[in-house]
């Protein structure tokens, strides 16, 4: 049951690039993905910034092989999942039991909200084909079919921690010998539903977000998809290359404090991080880098920071929120950040926390403000916390 699970492939599309090399170049060059909204039709265009993927649906259709009328979420998922699958280079290993565990919080809401404009005044109106992808699982199955994956296809939705739980579930399916390889992560396109939802909660920054800054004013929404290909030890040994790293620990822990707010002392984040450390057999000083949840809201950053202080004081690892580049991609964020964590280990790099001017006074640590290279990044902790108190942490370790 405690067999190791390895990361053999990765794929990502986000506001800072359409594939892994483009994302890496933007991270290294401190190029954030936020800007005026160009692709989503919304009244908030020009008023609220967001980190959109810089491709129209027509361009995404060409890249993904789906018709342009498909939900944007399907196309984002397909592009990143295909990159991850190809990158793993395992398709020529015979008789593999492969799975696709994908997370999403909004499914095909981009189409549903268009449908509703016509449907609301008259229930016989609205194009039914716009409702095909409403159900979250239909995003996953559309991509699984195109990739030819049929052994296991499942979808997880636990708000902003969704894809961390997808990665955990995928890893456990391998450990329980249900699967040999699994593409795990998540996807979410920007929609009016989520933009207005977060805006009514008054936690969207009208400027570019400033995670872990004393004067932070909220999050920017982003969109994208990120997946890792997890493989068993047997598959790893049959690969032509060495896997990038292992998934050495994970924990799902509930804050059980409030439907949307995090507890002031960060009980949920603390439990998730501590649980992941225990599972990986590591001590806090073993962690070289924390990829923070770091949304930029008052509440998240103070709760997450309090938990980090409780767990790591006085030995703070390097840390940063890459949401300062990608915005908050909701159900995709832990998948995208799993790719960034894997790259940190592969290349020995740590990303900057952009736009950090005034560190939070109550914390004795300061996130990284510049991109840096290191001889070795051995263990990376990646945090993802969501509505409903859902807190999940993952630990990736160098082999």
């Amino acid at each position, binding site marked *: 049951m405690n067999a190791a699970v390895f990361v053999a492939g990765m794929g990502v599309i986000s506001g800072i690039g359409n594939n892994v090399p483009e994302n890496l170049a933007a991270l290294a060059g401190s190029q954030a993905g936020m800007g005026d909204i160009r692709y989503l039709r919304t009244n908030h265009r020009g008023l609220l910034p967001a980190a959109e993927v810089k491709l129209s649906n027509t361009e995404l259709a060409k890249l993904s092989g789906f018709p342009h009328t498909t939900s944007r979420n399907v196309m984002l998922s397909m592009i990143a999942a295909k990159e991850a699958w190809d990158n793993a280079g395992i398709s020529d290993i015979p008789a593999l039991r492969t799975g696709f565990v994908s997370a999403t919080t909004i499914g095909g809401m981009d189409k549903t909200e268009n449908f509703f404009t016509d449907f609301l005044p008259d229930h016989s109106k609205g194009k039914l084909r716009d409702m095909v992808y409403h159900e979250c699982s*239909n995003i996953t199955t559309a991509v699984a079919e195109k990739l030819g994956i049929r052994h296991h296809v499942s979808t997880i939705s636990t708000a902003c921690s969704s894809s961390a739980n997808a990665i955990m579930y995928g890893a456990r399916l391998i450990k329980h010998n249900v699967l040999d390889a699994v593409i795990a992560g998540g996807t979410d396109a920007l929609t009016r539903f989520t933009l207005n939802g977060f805006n009514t909660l008054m936690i969207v920054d009208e400027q570019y977000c400033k995670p872990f800054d004393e004067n932070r004013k909220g999050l920017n929404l982003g969109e994208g998809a990120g997946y890792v290909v997890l493989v068993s030890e047997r598959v790893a040994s049959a690969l032509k290359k060495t896997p990038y790293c292992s998934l050495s620990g994970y924990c799902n822990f509930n804050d059980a404090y409030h439907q*949307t707010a995090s507890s002031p002392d960060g009980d949920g984040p603390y439990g998730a991080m501590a649980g992941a450390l225990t599972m990986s057999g590591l001590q806090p000083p073993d962690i070289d880098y924390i990829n923070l949840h770091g949304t930029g809201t008052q509440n998240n950053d103070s709760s997450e920071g309090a938990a980090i202080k409780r767990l790591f004081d006085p030995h703070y690892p390097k840390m940063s929120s890459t949401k300062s580049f990608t915005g908050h991609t909701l159900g995709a964020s832990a998948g995208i950040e799993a790719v960034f964590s894997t790259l940190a280990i592969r290349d020995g790099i740590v990303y900057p926390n952009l736009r950090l001017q005034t560190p939070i006074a109550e914390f004795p640590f300061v996130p990284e403000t510049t991109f840096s290279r290191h001889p070795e990044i051995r263990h990376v902790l990646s945090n993802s916390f969501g509505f409903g108190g*859902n807190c999940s942490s993952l630990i990736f370790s160098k082999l």
Partner: protein
Amino acid sequence: MKAYIRSAVSISPQKTFAAAPFLNEVAAYHTTRLSCIEPDYNEAIGAKLIRRMSRIIKMSVASALACLKDAGLSQPGAIITGTAYGCLEDTGTFLTSMVEFGEEPISPVAFVQSTHNTIGAQIALLLKCSCYNNTFVSGGASFENAVIDGMMLLNEGYSNVLVGGMDEITDMSYAILSRSGLYKRSPLSNLDLFKTNSKGTIAGEGAAFFTLANAASQNDLAGVDAVSTFYKPKDIAETVAHIKSFLTAQAISGSDINLLITGKNGDEKGDEIYEYLQQSLFEAAPAITYKNLCGEYPTSSAFALWMGANIISNNNIPALFGLKSNPENKINKVLIYNHYNNIHHSLILISSC
């Protein structure tokens, strides 16, 4: 490893909640949309707590709390839910206000409660329970994945897990799914669901929760031996092959099944596979249906598991199922086979303890 069903609670279009005797009478409807018979939530949850809860949250939380109570647990080891549609009412409310008010500031309450993990979160919040909490939205395999996740946790050392499946039907979802051709065109009695030889089924809904444990006790209803899902089989042969390998992995064959619970839903084409299996692989087993009781919805297999567990526990198949006689021997093994729109197929094998 077998999972022991310590308790099972269901809210459905039948009288299934609280102290109701197990399906001793049938609730008959003349419609294509069956709605749940709901309990008094003031009593089942508490007046103050239910104020902001939508119907699916109330149904689910009430079943979850009752399920834990029946198992004698104040806190579960894990909370895992499976729901294809999540909180449709809240989703519809937020979408409606967003469209009608043209993206002007609106109340965030419906948005907050529209997330698919709201039910699992509300249960955790009520119990102040920090345990593992996960939500599957895998269409017709949502509940099955929740059970698979729970059984893996039991194998990993958890002593018990709370697992539930739930989906609601709203006016909007009913209108949309009707237009997509899922349901029959004219009202009919749910008792005549299999007599029409026509396309489509009837809409249903429900919430069912189970406490699964890793060790046997005096109070177990039944045990879950194995759960398996498969996706869009190419043809009947592939379905049969999957079922055979599932049985082989459990070291049994079709003739060891004492009762088959099928997901027949009255759709002529979709029901063909069940009829084929009843005449071949499961020729010897009596077979019963359940969607004439609860209607069709993606997590209906949770209702079927609730039914199967009670049948094993009582060692009796209620008269309303219309079998000529109960099986002569003890009902040891019950197999639930269901598919939702021929996309996700699932097998749940349960046995006496």
